[in-house]
């Protein structure tokens, strides 16, 4: 039941921020909403209720490392699409591996 609720809230929040991004112009401004804290907003509230504020604060601290990985991911995607003439789907999906590598690397160095 909790998983279904999490799925519904997560889908709703992500769709909401994505729709805002769709409607905004210019595209560099709309892109800001591509890095909206949608998963965090959907998750943190439920985490506070089920596991407490200290647990959620620990998750938020790790999120900083995940956001740094997102910065590298965003810069890489921009570079590949602008300079290497690669398609958006191929670039953004395959570069998720880079996000994961940077996030896990950051966790290993700073948080473990």
């Amino acid at each position, binding site marked *: 039941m909790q998983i279904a609720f999490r799925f519904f809230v997560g*889908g709703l929040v*992500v769709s909401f*921020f994505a729709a805002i991004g769709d409607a905004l112009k210019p595209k560099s401004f709309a*892109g800001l909403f591509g890095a909206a804290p949608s998963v965090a907003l959907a998750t943190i509230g439920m985490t506070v209720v089920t596991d407490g504020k200290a647990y959620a604060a620990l998750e*938020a601290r790790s*999120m900083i490392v995940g*956001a740094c990985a997102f*910065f590298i991911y*965003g810069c890489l995607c921009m570079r590949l*699409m602008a300079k290497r003439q690669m398609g958006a789907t191929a670039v953004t999906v395959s570069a998720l591996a880079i996000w994961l590598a940077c996030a896990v690397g950051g966790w290993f160095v700073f948080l473990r």
Partner: protein
Amino acid sequence: MRIKFDVSALRRTRWYEYALRFFFGGAVTVAAGLIAKAYGPVFGGLFLAFPAIFPASATLVQKHETEKKRKAGIIDNNRGRKAAALDARGAALGSVGLACFGITLWRLLPRWNAGLSLVAALALWLVISLLLWQLRRMHFGKQRVVHGAST
């Protein structure tokens, strides 16, 4: 260029594109919770900054821009790709705001009410992201003026 909110752009997005984003967003949120349960909050927290929106939105930006040009009789795939690259630039700036969101929550959650901490963190994400976008625009605006004067 001025910031605009174009509601008609929402009608260009098809129902299955909305459904795909809803499904993906829900799946990522569930996965983030399950990873935190299995490996602890320190590792699971990384996935709160997972790029859940960006891949789908960049794909849509490229697709819609290419379609728009095709309707106008222009066959040019580069336009769509460049629009998606601009979207990525914005996302990279937004990720700095996302880090500030995390810092704010990390510091405020143990002391403040959870709802208030979330609102403060969200406000800071928006302010930092807007500020960075504006600063970047001003910086590159100046560069264009200098280039224009020298040529």
